């Protein structure tokens, strides 16, 4: 087996950070979750390269980095935004696992769709676990690569890839399993814990008019500009928890959608909470884009999350079929296992139950 991948940062790009599924279970001590802004694209990327779905990857923002592979060999895939991914100058489509090896240069060109892409690599990006996560939270300099975005000259290492990683090469996530990123789709919203702090007119503004994403839009949250949302009383509350997607409305009446790097707690009224799948959709939109909000029921919101989980299961099933093609049984063993040979390497396969073939 060849060694795991090492990458040298030739150009860091606009904002390239290490992210995983976030730093959970410490919000009660004020530690924000952080993590990938477009969670579904991030997870599908990991499945494509043979990783566990929450392995650390690089979140690439708009203008991507240039990375030279200095050691090892791995499969890599870019998902999410179309930021002109290329290997040695040749364009490589998103959602496709490709092999990269020492000497290759991974680069990006001009963005053509979206804002955030995920560069997933078999073995995952190997940075220290901090409070259970590898995600970068730059405001407190926590996690990731020294708590910050990548800089020129940094050296990144990847972990040891899972068995059969090599067989992921060429695997493509089909369009029907990718998240829908229609830039004009309304953001679906559940009523927020302080919906009763707004007038009917305020609610009509929020759900009935369009808002433009302002220039204050980053990993912490997106501030919108549009018709001010009217409160029925004070705009401030006793500080409480801020969930992902919370739509805070301070006294100025302009909504702010709170995203991955949100503070754990805050003191503004929350009119609604954007469905988690649509926080990912929002993360792919840029300042100036127009968004609208539409109210949905909890059942619908949960079904959307489940739909994304089914898409990931679907891609894992495809990966299993893709990687097993050409496998040859070598030796049956008692107690529910057998040895098969794939590309000249023997693997043990275990099962719990067998069924009769009709």
């Amino acid at each position, binding site marked *: 087996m060849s060694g795991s991948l090492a990458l040298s940062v030739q150009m860091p790009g606009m904002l390239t950070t290490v992210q995983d599924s976030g730093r959970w279970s410490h919000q009660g001590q004020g530690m924000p979750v952080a993590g990938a802004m477009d969670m579904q694209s991030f997870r599908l990327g990991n499945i494509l390269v043979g990783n566990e779905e929450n392995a650390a990857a690089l979140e690439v923002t708009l203008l991507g980095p240039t990375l030279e592979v200095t050691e090892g060999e791995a499969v890599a895939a870019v998902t999410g935004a179309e930021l002109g991914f290329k290997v040695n100058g040749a364009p490589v489509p998103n959602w496709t696992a490709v092999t990269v090896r020492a000497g290759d240069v991974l680069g990006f060109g001009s963005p053509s769709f979206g804002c955030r892409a995920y560069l997933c690599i078999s073995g995952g990006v190997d940075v220290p676990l901090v409070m259970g996560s590898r995600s970068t939270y730059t405001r407190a300099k926590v996690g990731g690569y020294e708590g910050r975005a990548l800089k020129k000259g940094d050296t990144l290492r990847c972990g040891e890839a899972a068995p059969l990683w090599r067989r992921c090469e060429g695997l493509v996530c089909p369009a029907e399993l990718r998240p829908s990123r229609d830039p004009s789709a309304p953001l679906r919203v559940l009523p927020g814990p302080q919906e009763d702090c707004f007038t009917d007119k305020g609610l009509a503004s929020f759900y009935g008019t369009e808002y433009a994403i302002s220039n204050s839009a980053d990993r912490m949250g997106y501030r919108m500009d549009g018709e001010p949302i009217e409160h029925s009383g004070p705009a401030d509350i006793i500080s409480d928890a801020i969930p992902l997607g919370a739509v805070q409305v301070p006294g100025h009446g302009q909504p702010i959608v709170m995203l991955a790097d949100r503070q754990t707690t805050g003191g503004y009224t929350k009119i609604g909470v954007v*469905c988690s799948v649509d926080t990912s959709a929002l993360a792919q939109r840029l300042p100036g884009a127009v968004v609208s909000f539409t109210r949905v029921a909890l059942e619908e919101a949960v079904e959307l999350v*489940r739909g994304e989980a089914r898409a990931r299961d679907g891609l894992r099933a495809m990966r299993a079929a893709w990687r097993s093609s050409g496998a040859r049984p070598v030796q049956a063993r008692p107690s529910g296992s057998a040895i098969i040979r794939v590309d000249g390497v023997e693997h043990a396969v275990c099962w719990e139950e067998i069924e009769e073939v009709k």
Partner: protein
Amino acid sequence: MPDKVYPRLLGAGDGCLVVEYGEAIDMDVNRRVAALAASVREMGFPGFLDAVPTYRSLAVYFDPVVADVKALQRRLGGMMVSTGAGAGSSVRRVVVVPVLYGGDDGTDLENVAAHTGLAADEVVRRHSANDCYCYMLGFTPGFAYLGGMDPSLETPRLKNPRELIPAGSVGIAGKQTGIYSIASPGGWQLIGRTPMMMFDQDRDPAIFLEAGMWVRFRPVDRAEFDAVESATAGRTYRPEILEEESA
């Protein structure tokens, strides 16, 4: 609008439910929040992600793919009523925070003295005489929202916030006192600094303060400050956490 009835269960998105116990910063309300947080963490459930206590509410985070939201609503709805105010918690845990008052790291001690009409020594004495209750953490990792500062020390924030305040700075803002857990901008009146890091990602635990604990400020001299600072840097410092019977 009809009066709100507490406790109440609120939705907060597809992966979060909130139990509210009231609409005030109140120790009895906060103790019920803490008790429910402990019960939820102890119970656990498939898909459980986090329980976040704040002044008067508890947020419970979960993965809706794994957790059954409807069943969870029913369960929390029952627990929020049956959970009393910190039943059985007669022991209070007190974290002792050594503070070097005044000097370069407490340049606003004179402001507070001037505003309150007290001598600087008296400000220090009163600030360290009362234990403060940690209602919640938030704002930055390890930042505690404390209650119980001697009301005679109340001083408004600075008119011009500072761009960078060192971690460990102890300040006063209105009725509140607090400790900056990481270097950040801010407008609090700085009266001193603790060498004990409230947040250190390379330490286990990175944050030792939890909602429901108490903070006792203890004035120290330069020599002790330096000793604690070097122990903190060498990661050998262990905070003094006392367990006392509550009065």
